[in-house]
């Protein structure tokens, strides 16, 4: 397959156990610049654990993570962020009591001098927030309304715009199209392609195989904590995907899809 760009993220032999439960088993994963990789699998296949490992929420029990060729230990979400990895979680991780601007810049506020107690530059944040929201056509009645009062689509829009504020090189999206209407789903897929056009790496978890086929350059299939198949764009069909996800062809133990 065409190697798109610089190798951004490389996981090798990553395993994670919760007590006796094997959540991840020797998973290898590569992600390049300007590439959209979809992560699919049934419930409990280990997709969320993998995302948590990459975003610094959980630590792998064994295996190594390399970002841009350098071995890193992602101890905290902040460490992952400073390594250029930004995660949009499925529950959006918005603070309902804060307004859109504060949510967008949460943890990375633009501030003034240390002497004045690092006051936030509300005006500059509002200007930037408007730009980011406009670029993705997220319409908000007011930037000062607490986001708890906004619609699901608007909240999703804010959550995804948050990924762009820190200008990350790698964006993880956990079920970005779940619970969205038709128009908003198309907008989100458009955003994913936009992220790709900006030469970022995108890792998408999705249950929606139609979405996956639409945007993904590569599809990684997980089952029971292991990576069971990987397909390049165009060399698979929906039934290949479903077979790999459900393990229907598992008897020979070497599905055609594995290269």
């Amino acid at each position, binding site marked *: 397959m065409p190697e798109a760009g610089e190798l951004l993220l490389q996981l090798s032999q990553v395993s994670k156990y919760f007590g006796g439960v094997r959540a991840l088993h020797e998973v290898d994963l590569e992600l390049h610049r300007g590439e959209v990789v979809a992560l699919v699998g049934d419930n409990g296949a280990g997709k969320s654990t993998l995302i948590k490992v990459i*975003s610094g929420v959980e630590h792998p029990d064994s295996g190594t993570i390399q970002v841009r060729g350098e071995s890193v230990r992602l101890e905290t979400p902040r460490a992952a962020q400073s390594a250029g990895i930004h*995660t949009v979680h499925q529950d959006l*991780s918005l603070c*309902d009591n804060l307004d859109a601007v504060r949510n967008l810049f949460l*943890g990375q506020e633009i501030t003034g001098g240390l002497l004045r107690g*690092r006051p*936030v530059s*509300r005006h500059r944040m509002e200007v930037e927030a408007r730009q980011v929201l406009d670029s993705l056509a997220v319409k908000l009645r007011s930037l000062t309304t607490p986001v708890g009062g906004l*619609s*699901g689509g608007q909240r999703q829009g804010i959550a995804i715009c948050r990924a762009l504020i820190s200008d990350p090189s790698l964006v993880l999206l956990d079920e970005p199209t779940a619970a969205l209407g038709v128009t908003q789903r198309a907008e989100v897929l458009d955003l994913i392609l936009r992220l790709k056009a900006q030469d970022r790496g995108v890792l998408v978890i999705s249950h929606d195989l139609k979405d996956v086929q639409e945007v993904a350059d590569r599809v990684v299939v997980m089952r029971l904590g292991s990576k069971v198949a990987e397909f390049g764009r165009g060399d698979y069909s929906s039934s290949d995907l479903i077979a790999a996800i459900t393990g229907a062809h598992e008897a020979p133990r070497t599905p055609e899809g594995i290269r």
Partner: protein
Amino acid sequence: MSTQQIQPPTAAPAAAPAEAGTPMLSRMVEGLSGRYRSIPVLLVLALIWVYFYSQNSAFLTSGNITTLTLQIVTTAILALGVVFVLLVGEIDLSSAMLSGVCATVTAQLAIKSEWPLWVAILGGVAVGVAFVGAEVLAIIFGVPSLIVTLGGMVILQGLLLVVLPPEFAINVAGTDYAKISSTYIPSGWSLALGAAGWLIFCATRYRTHRERESGTSPLVPVGVPALVSGVVIFGSIAVLSEGPGLPLPVLILVGMLLIAAYFTGRTRYGTHLYAVGGNREAAQRAGIPVSRMVIYSFLVLGVCAAVAGMVEASRLLAVSNSSGGGPLMLNAIAAAVVGGVSLFGGRGTVWAALLGALVIGSINNGVQLLGLSTEVQSFATGGVLILAVAIDVVITRGSLLPNRR
């Protein structure tokens, strides 16, 4: 937790007239839960004042208002600390007892050991910060703050007896310590301070407006707040100056409130504080040091408790085994909640401490002025507290009907 949304009361039965009035109502609820949260509190305060004034015109004399401000200062300072703890979604029950212990330590150092007053004050504050620091360690290890501070309160009751001398009281009358509460700022100085504060407020307000480059006239966004704050500042100074002047404790309270308002409202520290209270997991994922924010909040509470205890001791001219006891703790929590700080964390401003303390203090003061029995005082305070929390629940849920999320 974060995925649930506040549904505006749409065309539902009884919530509102189902016509065009609904978006208006939902906008109003939205405003009341956010920026204009203090308006209902101010209305309640105005009602209370009008009622007591109509019953006894002595209620709104400058003499009684000076008394009222001195009565509420302790509650308000303690409530300010409680606000910080409530904002991060924790609770505290031990700070009133802690204020008694800190005041006693300061009295011991200043009067028995004859240390300079400011060293003694620093000693008292250090004790407050140290004790709260020990409590918050247990809290960030996962013990519920309700339990930790309940236990802390009991420990402090014992500690108070340890730090008191065998006669269980220290008289501070006639010492420098007592002067904290009996000092009044001459009206010239308080006017100058008020004017300086007002000018700084107006200037920052105008600068923010100009920064926006919206091209609109500064009349409404700058003029209205300037007018309101001017009336409040100069009005209160004028009223207090008719009596003996601006009491030093009030100046301490206002100073603490202004610093707190700046840090919670204008700095990233404040945003993080609200984020931790609003959605702790989201704050964690955004890279906010959640435990550290909880620790900061409790340390602020420790300082507030120490200052409140000293002001109270110098007002009552003594520390004793009843210092920090009585209804002080519950009044402070009630003040914070009545003023509009949510018990569920993340909602409300530091001004709630002042407003809530004014509401509760006015009830107590008015009931005493009318010569009513203390039962009435308890009934009224309790009723107002429950009403305030009910309003808080309705506002955060966005509906008057139960079980509508």
